[in-house]
């Protein structure tokens, strides 16, 4: 296990179940990718994000998005700077003075945080999210780099019961990792029993404050180690075969999918390396390709996403056979 074992333990301590989301959160912190978790209300989405952020002792920014969200609410205050400048005596009738007024943003919120939790991101209008998500992508605001490591966004399902609009595809693409959660009780999972037992025991104080169990130094060193993880030609070939299958067999294209080069050729490599590192390895193995399904959740048509484990299995067998 890696240096992140304490953080994982902390997540387990605070939230029952949701194994995949927990792993993906750790992966996001190591690879410094953003993560989007979608699920119905009350499924510990926000709680998980919060525990992960606080447990890693990072500067933390939490924002609940709403339908009138403005840029200033996320990036800090808009300030006006006024500077007296000399005027040219354009008006012969009187003495003049002039001020130069410059509008700028006093960095705050997202611009100074290391981890940002963007709650209910799907409630904000798509038009408003654009610049926010570009900041996430480029990790700079204007010319200034920002310290952000990972943004964790949550959202409700895109059904009609919830007053939100599907995220714009370009915006959704900023989140390398995408997961869908269902409630433990709703889905009748094993863990549901555990969850109820825990509260029935009465020994748990609801919503205790998580203590930091890891820190930026650890995460930085993990991030450097991630780049040392080898990803050999076999895994690369398998990855490409999986993608080829999605395009050719499942007919993923520009209108029905977000099979973007940025995500699947650049970020996928990082995610695979991170997955291997989380498993305590220094080489990516074919088994790590399973992590791809955390990238396809909302990027390919549902049937292709569901078929992905099968495709990965088939491709892996073929690659092994060669």
């Amino acid at each position, binding site marked *: 296990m890696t240096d992140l074992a304490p953080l994982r333990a902390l997540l387990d301590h605070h939230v029952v179940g949701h194994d995949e989301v927990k792993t993906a959160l750790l992966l996001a912190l190591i690879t410094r990718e953003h993560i989007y978790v979608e699920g119905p209300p009350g499924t510990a989405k926000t709680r998980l994000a919060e525990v992960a952020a606080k447990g890693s002792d990072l500067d933390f920014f939490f924002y609940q998005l709403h339908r009138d*969200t403005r840029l200033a609410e996320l990036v800090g205050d808009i300030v006006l700077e006024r500077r007296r400048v000399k005027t040219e005596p354009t008006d012969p009738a009187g003495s003049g003075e002039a001020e130069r*007024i410059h509008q700028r943003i006093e960095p705050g919120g997202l611009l100074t945080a290391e981890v940002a939790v963007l709650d209910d991101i799907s409630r904000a209008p798509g038009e408003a999210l654009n610049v926010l998500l*570009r900041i996430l992508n480029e990790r700079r605001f204007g010319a200034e780099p920002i310290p952000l490591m990972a943004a964790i966004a949550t959202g409700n399902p895109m059904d009609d019961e919830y007053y939100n609009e599907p995220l714009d595809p370009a915006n959704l693409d900023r989140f390398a990792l995408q997961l869908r959660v269902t409630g433990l009780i709703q889905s009748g999972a094993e863990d549901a029993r555990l969850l109820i037992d825990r509260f029935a025991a009465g020994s748990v104080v609801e919503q205790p404050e998580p203590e930091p169990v890891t820190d930026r130094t650890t995460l930085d060193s993990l991030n450097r180690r991630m780049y040392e993880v080898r*990803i050999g030609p076999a895994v690369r070939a398998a990855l490409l075969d999986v993608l080829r299958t999605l395009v050719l067999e499942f007919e993923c294209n520009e209108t*029905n999918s977000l*099979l973007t080069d940025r995500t699947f050729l650049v970020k996928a490599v990082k995610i695979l390396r991170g997955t291997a590192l989380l498993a305590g390895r220094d080489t990516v193995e074919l088994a790590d390709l399973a992590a791809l399904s955390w990238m396809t959740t909302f990027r390919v048509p549902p049937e292709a996403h569901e078929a992905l484990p099968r495709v990965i299995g088939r491709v892996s067998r073929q690659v092994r056979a060669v």
Partner: protein
Amino acid sequence: MAPPAPDRRVADLAAAFVELRTALGRTLIGQDDAATGLTLALLAEQHAYLEGPPGCGKSALAAALAALSGARTHTLVFHRDIRETDLLGDVLLSRHRHRGHERLRRELIPGPLLQAEIALLEDLPRSPGEALGPLLRILAERHALGQPLPLESAVATGPLEQVEAPIDPLEPGQLDRFAVQLRLTGLLTGGLFDEAAVLLEREAARVPPRSADPSAADSAGAPAAATAAPRSAVISTGTPNRLEPGERRSGSRRRRGGPSSELGNRQPGEPRGAFSPRSAVMSTTTRNAAQRAAAALRIEPRTIDAYHRLLDRLRQRSADNSASGDRLMSDRSFSSAALRLVRAHAFLRGAPAAAPRDLGAIRYMVAHRLPEEVQADFDHILEELLGDPPKVTMTETGAQMPGAQSQGDDDSDGAAAASPASDSWIDDKADLPAPPTLFGKPPAPAQVDPLLRALVGRIERGRIDPDTDPGGQPRGYRPLRDLDELIDADVIEALLFAEGRLPGAPRTFERKRRSAGGAVAVLRDISASMAGRLTVWSSQVVLGILRVAARRRMRVGYVEFHHRALPHEVGGRLLHRSYSRLAEQAGQAKAVGQTNYEAPLRTALEGLRGGSGRNRHIVLLTDGLPIIGDTTVRRERQLAHRLGVALHTVFLGNGDCPPVLDDISLETAGLRFCGRPTAGGGLRLEER
């Protein structure tokens, strides 16, 4: 105006731009076409618009151009709330005492964008059209706040006109400001798996970013170098440069190399092999000298002839494909800009004058100016016109190979006989990427257009005017109504207001949104009599409606019916937003069985009943009398009336339109259409 430069000097200038092109191509794997287009744009001092799906490297390419060219750059990310001061500069507020009262004057001081040589305009269409108007005019005029701009090229990026993006697509008039228009395709979705493998390999070898700057690990985040070389001279641009006979260069410089890669012919001392787009490959002096030299290049008379013929051909073909909508061949673009690009093309390959095949540069202009079919066919049209498949490419860049021997050919078209070079910098035979069409199907041909237009008008009625919404796009100003709105007020007026110097309240943005939503259900008769052409037509109608619904984010339902209703549900719901899936379905319909109106209407109304709000429609496409079920559909009509659902009916075919269709439409304020096959095999549509 450039002094007549010695040949060697001109060769160096061209070489610098070839180097730029090569370095761009290396920055972004598999996007050679775009790299060439951008290089030509900068050389010809034209603006460029890059369009493509997310994550295909638009921004990275634009940023690389800026960094490699050494130009003073300003990047501006467009978003909903962009303001005048972001675009133009700071406000200078001056106060003058004048006969006992104070006079306030507000001026703009040119900001960084107006001082840039290359302006990167990211996500341009994300701003409301109102905000873009003044900026785009400035870009075109290259003159602002009373002074000429140092601007050489503005490179804008924008998302593909995608079904779900909440943007107003740029109008053709706005797009026309960008002479070069490029459409990028992703490697994966474009099927370029070999290139994808190269990119994967490169990523697998990636080492941790040196600094704490995490963006270095993101290919799409390649930042522009903000270093600005001091500018030697301000050139005024935007007008077609006169040909200066004195600047004509002799043909002796021009030589034709073998099919070798120019990569192998790099001159000593030039930077090589660097992936990092952060170091410039040319100085501002070189860049500007090359631009002047390219602009002054002679155009051979036969090139002009060929150009006229090309325009004729394009006009002709575009007229044939008029159904594809707003296309524009403006005088502005196809006179000055086009010819500068043609000159740049010739300059880049080291030719002394623009030959007919330099018209190939026009292909970088067509993405939004010609119907998609014509774009896809552009290379073919040009080849045909030149009478000879111009397989030869730019390997004769004399500029690149000062040592190579001149072959003494005067006729550059004669070079067509030379063997094609696969890795030359301009691959004339490379196909334009297939233009994406919505749902991967060709747009509906002209026959069903009137019907679609009428339907669309009805479906969109009430939502053409956007609703006031605090989360929407700023569409103008209105007086401040309450203090909470101060955050959205005009900054300067808010300031004066706070100081008690403003007589009234400050103006604040009036924000509006097009209300998304509403629902439309399409009921399509697939009974046996619909076989043949009628099936094709009704498929086109369905696709057209789906396209409109997708753009307006309306939920759609699709029910095929014969004696039974066959709803195509997704996730157990009739109404959903899986447009592509329905489009696919609509293309596969087979005609079978008899006609029943009752069942599909009931199904659709049940589906629509759950929803709320106005703007709910049903479109019934049929060719015959109902035989099965309640043929008067009395209950369904009543239900539709009660729910406020508009029932539009379209009757296709030669027979008499069943009166029940009229009743249905009249009772529910729906449209009535009928379509009759014509002798010529077309379809004549009229309102009943």
